[in-house]
């Protein structure tokens, strides 16, 4: 009995040891992967951060107004955001790789899907970022041009420009991510159409005066007015 117990125990211990011996290398490999992954991700983060600083990425994002958005949301700078994002994605990738080494069934498929999804995620983030840059830039350009041309409602114009561009950007982003494609398409179609209609009506009503003034200036502009206006700056 005692012997049986001992043998069973030995068996169990041996099994455990065997099991452990079987899993230990994988575990070690996983831990190593996680650790190395962390190292590599950290390295990536540092390299990316210095590259972005070197190319004055913050300034770029500032120009686009993206920084303002981030500041408002109490988030760190665009460079920091992007570096952290890369760090986490890279590390996560390694950790998942480690887990897959453990050979847990069912998890493999999810991990594979994660890796397939990664490029899309990247591209989407980039599109979103540059889209916001472009939208901010165009909006401000429109605002300044409108103010200097003495056109009515510059801010409305600016907002419209930003909205149009953002609608476009978001539709592209969602399509890239493949999220509820049909729904999104219809939703954005409706939103976009509504915006356009609104703008058309707004311009139609507001532009009546503008058009009249334009025509007046072109056709019946008097010399007196022009002389009064102009002072040579140089």
């Amino acid at each position, binding site marked *: 009995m005692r012997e049986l117990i001992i043998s069973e125990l030995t068996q169990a211990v041996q099994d455990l040891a065997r099991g452990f011996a079987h899993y230990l290398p994988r575990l070690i490999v996983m831990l190593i992967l996680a650790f190395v992954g962390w190292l590599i991700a950290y390295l990536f983060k540092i390299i990316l951060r210095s590259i972005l600083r070197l190319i*004055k990425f913050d*300034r770029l994002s*500032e*120009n686009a107004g993206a920084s303002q958005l981030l500041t408002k949301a109490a988030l760190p700078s665009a460079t920091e955001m992007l570096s952290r994002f890369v760090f986490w994605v890279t590390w996560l990738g390694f950790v998942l790789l480690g887990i897959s080494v453990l050979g847990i069934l069912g998890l493999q498929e999810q991990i594979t899907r994660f890796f397939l999804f990664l490029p899309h995620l990247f591209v989407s983030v980039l599109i979103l970022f540059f889209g916001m840059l472009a939208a901010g*830039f165009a909006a*401000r*350009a429109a*605002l*300044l*041009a*409108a*103010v*200097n041309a*003495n056109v009515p409602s*510059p*801010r409305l114009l600016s907002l419209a420009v930003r909205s149009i561009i953002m609608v476009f950007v978001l539709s592209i982003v969602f399509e890239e991510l493949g999220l509820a494609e049909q729904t999104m398409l219809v939703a954005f179609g409706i939103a976009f159409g509504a915006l356009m209609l609104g703008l058309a009506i707004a311009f139609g009503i507001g532009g009546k005066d503008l058009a009249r003034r334009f025509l007046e200036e072109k056709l019946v502009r008097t010399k*007196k*007015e022009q*002389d*009064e*206006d*102009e*002072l*040579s*700056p*140089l």
Partner: protein
Amino acid sequence: MEDGNFLTDDFLRQLINVGEVDILVGLPTHNNAKTVGSVVHTIRTGILRSFPRERAVIINADGGSRDGTPELITGVSIDDVRRGSGIYALRTLHAISTKYASTPQSEVAMRTILAAAELLRAKACIVMSPESESITPEWVTNLVRPVYSDSFDLVSPTYHRHKFDGLLMTNLLYPMVRALYGVKIREAYMPEFGFSGRLGSQFLGQNRWNDGIGENGTELRLTLAAVTGGFRICQSFLGKKDPVERRAADLVPTLRHSVGVLFSALESDFNAWSTVSGSQEVPAFGTDPELALDPLRVNRKRLRDMFVRGVSELESVFQTILAPSTLGELKRIAGLSEEEFRYPAELWVRTVYEFAAAFQKSVISRDHIIQALAPLFRGRVYTFVVENRNGSANDVANNIESLCLEFERLKPYLLEIWKSKQ
């Protein structure tokens, strides 16, 4: 347009024919057929009268005229084939032309002229405006002589002007250049000027051509290069400045190639200007320029309206450029009634300096920074016009002088915000 082949073969052939010259007259043009004929005639008269023995050439850099401007210029060459001008010429006076592009770009025109000057080893060069209606032969003499006879490297012009003419010059460029670079050059951005071959060559070699923002405004960069390079600078009185240019350009492009160029130069010239304090007169030739006082109708209401609207509409932009106190002050004066409204000198100087610092840091697109200055400048113009409406020439001059001193006084403030992070 690589350095090696910047000039066309045809132009090079013409330059070979001209050969070495003593005096080179550059004439950048674009559809100036109305005025260019008389301008060239006057230039030629000036050369023949004052420099009959010198080898001279008129070089036209044309930005794609379609009205026959280049032909008008080359048509007045004095050589042995065409005669009968009434003026006796000892030598052949070439007038050659090259078309550098189909659209006018003063930078390319200037570069063409400078490259030609270097190839022809010109001792004295002048650039003349093809639009000038009040030009006289003495202008040529007054611009050439300081270089040719007195070894100056840059001859900056002075003019008789109306007191409300050139307000960007009197309210920003002159005081700022004076305060930062320490030299009292009245017309740092000038349609007519003279320079030595030495300065021309150095500028040609060192200037960053085609760097975008300064597509125009090469003249201002030349002036600043002369100042920072330690070249000998003088001012020479020409005459009455043309009222033609009153119809000139939209404010924003003008700001771009004057203030924009100055702001971007500040970045590269930091070591030069940051150590300067006070300002020096530059040697002057000819009579002192006078301010004309005859009444001039100005649409003041529009100026103020555009200022007020600018301040309210562009608040988000100004937040990135201006210090909160400055913006607050601007909002306050924008709210004042027409009678009370005043954009004081100190506030204007702070505004300009903060814009310059923001430009250097590129807090937003540099071009947007320049555009945002336009409504504020209009507000300053309004104040200047109101303050000097009934002022004598002396009063106006004093006003400008005190603005200059304000720019000089606040220079440490610029240095402070220049160095501060964000």
